[in-house]
């Protein structure tokens, strides 16, 4: 273990603490800490996945957090009224599916366009300077 501090003599402070621990007959143990940074979420793909996961409003929601009695009551209620729930939420399910499809389509287009822009930009960067500056020739109009 390292101590950080400008106003302390870290080594002697630690040494003294370790000696006191030894005198008490206690062994020091370190607790492992996971400090990996969180991965960055790509928003377009994340949203498509999230829409997929929550597309069907008729699916049962997990109630495990509230304990067994609540789960049982909810399950019984759901079984008894599933047909009604499905009927009521059918239009919502269809709407969600369309939103998901539209989002997936648009997201795919955006990702593809981004890739193309990137490729064009890198190609343009590789071209010699003269090529970029050369004026474009206009096609001559033919007299008819």
């Amino acid at each position, binding site marked *: 273990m390292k101590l950080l501090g400008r106003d302390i003599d870290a080594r002697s402070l630690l040494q003294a603490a370790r000696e*006191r621990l030894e005198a008490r007959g206690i062994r020091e143990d370190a*607790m492992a*800490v996971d*400090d990996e*940074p969180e991965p*960055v979420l790509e928003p*377009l793909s994340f949203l498509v996945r999230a829409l997929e996961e929550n597309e069907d409003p008729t699916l049962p929601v997990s109630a495990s957090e509230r304990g067994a009695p609540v789960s049982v009551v909810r399950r019984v209620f759901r079984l008894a009224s599933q047909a009604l729930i499905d009927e009521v939420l059918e239009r919502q399910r269809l709407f969600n599916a369309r939103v998901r499809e539209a989002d997936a389509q648009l997201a795919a287009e955006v990702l593809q366009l981004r890739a193309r822009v990137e490729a064009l930009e890198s190609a343009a960067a590789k071209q010699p300077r003269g090529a970029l500056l050369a004026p474009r020739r206009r096609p001559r109009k033919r007299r008819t």
Partner: protein
Amino acid sequence: MVVHQLVPHFRIGDPTAQAAVQFQVLLRRLGHWGGLFSVSREPGTEALVQPLEALRVRAEDLLLLHHGVGSQLPGRLLHTPGRRGVVFHGLPPLRFHRRTSLEPALLSGRAQLSGMAPHVGLGIGLSGFGAAELRRAGYANVHTVPLFVEPERFGPDRVDPALRTRLGSAAFGLVSVGPVAPHARVEDLLALHREVLRIRPDARLVVAGEVDRRSPAMRALEVEAARTPGVTLLGQVSHAERVAVYRSGSVFVSMGEHEGSGVPLLEAMAGEVPVLAYAAGAVPETLDGAGIGFDEKRFALLAELAVQLGTDARLRARILAGQRRRLQVLGAGHSEERLGAALDSVGVPRPSRTRARRRRPRVGIIVQRYGPEITGGAEAHAAQVVGRMLPHWELRVLTSCATDHLTWANALPPGESTVDGVPVLRFPNPRPRRMRELNALSRRLFGRSLGRDEEEAWMALQGPLLPGLWRHLAERGGEYDGFVAFTYLYVSTAWSVPLVADRTLLVPTAHDEEPLAFDAYAEVFERPRALLVNTPEELELIQRRFPRHARARVVGVGVDPPAVRAERFRGRFELPGDYLLYVGRVERGKGIPELLRAYGRLRATVADAPALVLAGEASMDIRAEGVRVLGRVSEQEKWDGLAGALAAVVPSAKESLSLLALEAFAVGTPVLGNAESPVVRGHLERSRAGLAYEDAPAFVGAVARLQRNRAAMARAARRYASRYGWARVVDAYREEMDAIVRPG
């Protein structure tokens, strides 16, 4: 420039709300104005924070979104015109919140963070740690603007007395402040505390912060904490209670594995408790060598260290000195500089004065109300200064559309107009004041130690809210050479002064009242170029309350009475005998009920008691024997009345100048004044031209002495009033403005 801020949910004490308020303070100091907008607001903050629907953004404005967990605001930001920025508050790692109700919001927040990156010109992290996350998420222009704490808010005088008593004085105690959430690792605090108990069985652990009850693990932790000896989980606490927690501890410990801003560490430093913190997130950069950081959780070893840190006086003193130094480096000035640099990077520079060559300086007079129909001490004072300075300055009055000081309702048309040849620019108040709402909040806040957000919410509710004025100052303030602002108390002045502080003379008209205890008013007293105060007593009060106040000068007003004829007043109002005269607003706040009680005693004691005449707009129903209520009187009637009075009565305990006393002295009339007012007492002691009364019997005695010695007192009154000529006042204003306009 205008920089608005979006906050998902505004709740007093919430770190996001506190950061937004702090940014608003910094923005004002940088010369920028902007409102706070939120999806939902806590009751009592409706004047400070506007609903999202009220947001109007122009192409040149900057909109800053305070972002953390997922909300509807990123979508709003991306579809709003104008320049955009994100202030990132950090998101706790997902591994701590798997299968909790917070998980989807964390995922959304993270996806929204990277989704906004290509569309936002400015990313602000509240720490280098947060800034690094922004860069990883794809932000190109990233700045770090650390939050600051105001050390005076964590002083020993700010401790909640009830909690101090409840916590008692344990021989050794660990304290920790922050939300009891999975990433805060309160279970590690408990593990450390158990090790400390093996060394010090009397040890205590106090944890203050809202418990995240959505998490089953946190609910289980509450049960575990309750079973562990010496542990107190306080839950959410007020500002004063938080100070009590810091100041009750031997050591402040942070075991959190995601510290986004480092604010609790800074607060602990301000609360003068040594910091022992796990070096995660923003902790190493916040401490930067102050306190003690550690990189592994070896509880037995840490317990030995904690006990030594809490009990070794020399080590503790060394650590505290280092923490004080760190706190000075991370002051408000440091945050202001960093925010200024961030705004520069997106083309929002600090406004500057346009230096045009003018024969007379162009001066803006900032005052809460203005016009011939306005009665009120500070407003009359402003009008007199305007009248006298008109030949010397190119003036423009910047004020509200209100005539009523209770509601600030828009009674006069907004925009340009002229009053007695003076250009006046009026700005509407979008939210008239509701006295019941203000009084309720005042009862809740006055006399307590508060956070900045609570004080700013009260100031906004006090009003008058003039966003048009603040926009005008932020965008066109550079066209003025200087400003004179009146009355520190009103938000129209309090939020204007920092915007143009380097060119402003403040006439505070301060007296001893509850809001003067708010630290937020330090901006008004410390930042202007100079304070032009009314009396030595006012200066003494400001000195006591804000020792770092701007340079101050006792200036006051001039009093030049017209030719007077007492008989004219006596005849007009049928007052053949002696009378005592009060001129001003007839309302409770002016001490009228106490005056009526004292006068009742006089009538009961003395057979030929003088009449009591009250002249001015009355907001109370008065029916008492010998009392005449005249309503509003003309300026000439006031002077005639004062000249003929046995004495002028000044019943208000809260005076910063007492113009009535000076006017009475100028026509040779003595004054009977409330001894509770240091200003009135000061005038009477210096002039020997009147008497002060503490209570009804003293009032009766004073009237008798006055009747006996009136002639001598009248001579003393005239001598004293001769000091208050306008020429001296005008010279003082000109000198101070010249120092601004032509520095050096």
